[in-house]
């Protein structure tokens, strides 16, 4: 029995090592995704190009502009002569934000019924829009005696990621996304390929049992998954300085659980697909909702009820909870019983369905 599993494993590893494309994908996908999400896709909006029309040109207006620039959100280009010039530059795409300070700025500041200054925002880019709107909360510099309360009502502090760097939030979740992508596709395709090429017809007539065949085929992918986790964590720490606040053992335990779940999903897909192409399609069909609904890109709480229910079925949702908890909040896995239990539940149900569907027969 062990010898048969071993034989299947050796065969699978040999084939993998010879399939250069797949082998490249094992390392290539995590690296590409890390660099893509780490560098290119940046949810921190900084240094938006801005221009100013300062008709007041008083010490208060200059102090206010200095406070805006100090926020780091905007970077001032050469000032504009007037409002029409500001609008022309925005429509030309030269600037994303315009600040207009009228001549009677100081009187308007005291008169609460009228806005003191105007902020022009390029609404065509959603990210710029929402961030620039935040600028309205920048308080006026304190000047004794001129006005009463200018202190901001809330002090905002970001826990676990004080610098609010995207990489810190992205990397733990990226472990899940990468595993999800590679594990499901590799296993589904590896099994369907043998069916398509007729290898399975031969294997069925040999003494190898279906569970031995599956175990032997899937075990090498568990190792590959763990290599990928290590790769993502290593690159995350090296390039993006992402710490692992919790226990590394807990993280690998969670990853192992998730790998088992994704392999089972791949196995399930392989029992449904007749051709490698169908397997690819089905794998992608599960990928997209996983990426969109798991809380990887968009906050889970803002989703409609139906989307939240779908997300509950996706293993990536629960692994994201685990990974963020362990990597960022430093939580031990014992504190994360609920997502871990949900992952186990997915594993058990999917495995039961796949086993029922995969029989050692052709019909």
């Amino acid at each position, binding site marked *: 029995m062990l010898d048969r599993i*071993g034989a299947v494993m050796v065969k699978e590893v040999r*084939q993998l090592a010879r399939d250069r494309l797949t082998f490249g994908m094992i390392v290539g996908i995590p690296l590409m995704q890390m660099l893509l999400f780490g560098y290119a896709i940046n949810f921190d909006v900084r240094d938006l190009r801005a221009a100013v029309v300062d008709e007041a040109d008083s010490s208060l207006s200059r102090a206010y502009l200095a406070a805006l620039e100090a926020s780091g959100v905007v970077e001032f280009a050469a000032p504009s002569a007037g409002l029409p010039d500001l609008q022309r530059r925005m429509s030309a795409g030269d600037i994303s934000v315009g600040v207009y300070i009228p001549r009677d700025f100081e009187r308007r500041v005291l008169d609460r019924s009228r806005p003191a200054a105007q902020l022009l925002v390029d609404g065509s880019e959603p990210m710029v829009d929402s961030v620039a709107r935040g600028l309205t909360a920048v308080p006026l510099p304190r000047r004794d005696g001129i006005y009463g309360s200018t202190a901001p009502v809330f002090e905002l502090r970001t826990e676990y990621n004080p610098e609010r760097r995207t990489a810190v939030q992205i990397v733990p979740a990226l472990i899940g996304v990468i595993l999800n992508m590679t594990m499901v596709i590799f296993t589904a395709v590896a099994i369907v390929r043998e069916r398509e090429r*007729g*290898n399975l017809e*031969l294997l069925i007539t*040999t*003494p190898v049992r279906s569970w031995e065949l599956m175990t032997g085929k899937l075990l090498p992918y568990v190792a590959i998954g763990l290599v990928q986790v290590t790769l993502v964590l290593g690159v995350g720490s090296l390039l993006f300085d992402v710490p692992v606040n919790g226990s590394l053992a807990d993280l690998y335990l969670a990853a192992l659980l998730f790998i088992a779940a994704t392999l089972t999903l791949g196995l399930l897909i392989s029992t449904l697909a007749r051709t490698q192409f169908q397997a690819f399609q089905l794998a992608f069909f599960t990928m997209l909702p996983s990426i969109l609904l798991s809380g990887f890109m968009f906050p889970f709480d803002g989703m409609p009820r139906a989307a939240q229910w779908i997300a509950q079925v996706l293993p990536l949702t629960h692994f994201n909870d685990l990974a963020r908890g362990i990597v960022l909040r430093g939580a031990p896995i014992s504190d994360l019983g609920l997502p871990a239990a949900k992952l186990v539940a997915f594993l058990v149900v999917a495995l039961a369905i796949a086993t029922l569907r995969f029989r050692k027969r052709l*019909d």
Partner: protein
Amino acid sequence: MNVQPAIVARGLTRRFGKLVAVDDVDLAIPKAGIYGFLGPNGSGKSTTIRMLCGLLAPSSGTVEVLGHQMPRDAEQLRRQLGYMTQRFSLWDDLTVLENLEFMARIFGLGAAARRQRIAELSAEYDLASVLRQRAGTMSGGQRQRLALAAATLHRPELLLLDEPTSAVDPQSRRDFWESLFRLVQQGTTILVSTHYMDEAERCHRLAILDEGRLVAEGSPRALMRDIAAAVVEVETDDVPAARGALAGDAQIRSIAQLGTRLHALLDRDTPDAAEHVHRRLAAAGVVAQVHVVPASLEDVFVASTGFRH
């Protein structure tokens, strides 16, 4: 010789939706011989073989293979069974040696037995020089020898071969059949499907399948002797004219051309078949030599498939 047959099937039927692929087939396949399934594509040869090795469950009927009830006891049969699929189904991206090692381990051969058996078989099937070559880069004949070596690694009692020679040249086919006879001498029972007449003729016994039904069964010699038709050979310089003269005759069921000759199959109870053909040709003014000849296997095939092929 063991009198107990290797395979016994009764009323074997397999339906795919509305299509009846195998229709009420009875089989009794003796041990230590080569038993052939002869039939055109779609006649149910592969489906029958797949039911015999437990790959497909019959829609109705019973199969017993080497004393095991199929498909219920399929797992018990695995070690006694070697199977060669119609298409090459070992791994193209593994070498010959790796393929053989894998199959040997799957069949539970220990390291020493494995080495010895692979050495024996690579000598027997002329694979020693290509052991390190990937299976995908080999010729059809080499791949077929590899597949046979893999199927016999564990010395199976029963070998099922589904159109094993459809992708190889005539010389390789001849060598392949020599190997099969050597296996039979060692006591192996072989079931082989084919649509080649010359291969069918080499079998000890033969079943002719047509549209899922078993239409004739027996040794090739007996089948040719007992053919349900009279075979008349026509030798003439003007084959098309002779063909035209014989077409449409109620007694003549089938005409096939073999070079400058025609084979006409007539109803068996036609009195003096040669004379009947001769009269038809003379009436049409065709000069020809006409005589009754022994049936070939192809004649048997045509006669037993209702003169449709």
